[in-house]
């Protein structure tokens, strides 16, 4: 059904342009608004073009896992809310939402972004769990990069609630931020035909061959990867796509507080 769309898109890409006039490696306008939700411990709204997500952080106190008694934990969830896309349905998260949440989770976890030792209150008994919930408002393509960026911004925005006598006082936030050591950025590079592109539109997402999401730490290290799509990639593709991600991550990073030079 999308054969013609694919043929046209490839012809455009080979000529170095796209339907909306962007170059293949050009993002739409990116914006980050901090503190969007007053009832969350941390929150933000991220827009990439018309794509919009609202992400919130809630903090709860749990018993640490038995194998990591002196560490807190992290949980990432993504809700593909039906307001955002005519194809999204109510009900439990589908496979796309689950994959997205896990890829965002891995970037944060593997970069060591959160110092989970500092989330411990009493070893073996009590530790903070950081819960990040990503909610889609409008899906005009590239939910992945928007969601990953929003998760980091929401973490930056979060403050611990007051905690006394084993009780959390939600709504009374301290001025203590989360113990953040790194701010990983995720860039997804797509391959259509022989061309690479970033920040796809809905149409481009329908016809790509393969994609590679690269999570990159502040120091420029790769900290998570996810290959997606139905088509294969060669080693040379991977090298080129990681190089593109390394270069493009600066554009996303500079939208974060304290990260612009």
């Amino acid at each position, binding site marked *: 059904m999308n054969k013609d769309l694919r043929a046209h898109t490839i012809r455009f890409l080979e000529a170095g342009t796209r339907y909306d006039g962007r170059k293949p490696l050009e993002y739409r306008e990116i914006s980050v608004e901090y503190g*969007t*939700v*007053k*009832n*969350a411990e941390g*929150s933000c709204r991220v827009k990439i073009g*018309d794509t*919009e997500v*609202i992400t*919130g*952080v*809630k903090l*709860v106190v749990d018993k640490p896992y038995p194998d990591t008694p002196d560490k807190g934990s992290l949980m990432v*969830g993504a*809700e593909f*809310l*039906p*307001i*955002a*896309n*005519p194809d999204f349905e*109510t*009900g*439990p*998260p589908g496979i796309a939402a689950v994959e997205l949440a896990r890829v965002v989770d891995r970037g944060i976890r593997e970069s060591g972004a959160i110092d989970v030792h500092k989330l411990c209150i009493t070893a073996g008994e009590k530790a903070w769990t950081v*819960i990040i*919930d990503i*909610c889609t*408002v*409008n*899906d*005009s393509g590239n939910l992945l990069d928007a969601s990953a960026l929003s998760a980091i911004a929401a973490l930056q925005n979060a403050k611990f609630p007051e905690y006394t006598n084993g009780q959390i006082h*939600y*709504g009374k936030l301290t001025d203590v931020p989360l113990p953040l050591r790194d701010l990983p950025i995720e860039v997804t590079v797509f391959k259509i035909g022989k061309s690479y592109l970033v920040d796809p539109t809905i149409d481009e997402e329908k016809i790509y061959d393969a994609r590679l999401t690269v999570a990159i730490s502040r120091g420029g290290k790769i900290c998570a990867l996810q290959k997606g799509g139905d088509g294969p990639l060669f080693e040379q593709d991977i090298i080129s796509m990681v190089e593109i991600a390394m270069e493009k991550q600066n554009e996303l990073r500079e939208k974060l507080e304290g990260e612009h030079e």
Partner: protein
Amino acid sequence: MKRIDGRKADEMREMSAKAGIIPRADGSGYFQIGKTVAYAAVYGPRNLYPKFLQDPQKGILRVNYNMMPFSSKGERVRPGGNRRSKELSLVIEKALLPVVNLNEFPNAVVDVFIEFPQTDAGTRCAGICAAAIALADAGVSMRDLVGAVSTGKAGDSIILDLNYEEDSAENGADIPVAMTGRKNEITLLQMDGKLSLEELQEAIQLAQKGIAQIIAVQRKALQEKYHE
């Protein structure tokens, strides 16, 4: 009488509204009252599946109410809905139904999805207000707008547009009301608490005053989008 947040008994919280905030949707609405924020998106009229749900006489209106996991004042809300969100989806659907001309799209469905990033009492009413804007924005055939607000009782006074503290106060009463804009037809009425008949009448009359203000805000939001 002075209220917790300094308002007069018949004073609403500050409101704002927008139409067309979700580009992918066929119609969308944003309605904020105090710290409660509602987003509504309309998809349709579109084909309804499974097919046995289709009605050749008229279309179907389907509403889904959902709070985002971080939207609540206290603990995280587990995603995926619960008995409360099911009931609210139902009563919101019934609040909107009388104004939508369903006979104009037989066999089809109009989906209304309502999401709350932030809540502070009055979500079902804010959801109705946002949904009415979204339906109008989608160009779904309607004969009127619907507005909604909760009234209630605090001490001996009947008050308009409860906030969270007033809503959760003991010995109070909470009365969400929805009405059509032109004829003041009541399309949603719920109540919990203790109330005399006289107090109920006073509450409905107070709601009518509030809803008139809401309809004006909804109309302005739609005009702002379509006058450009």
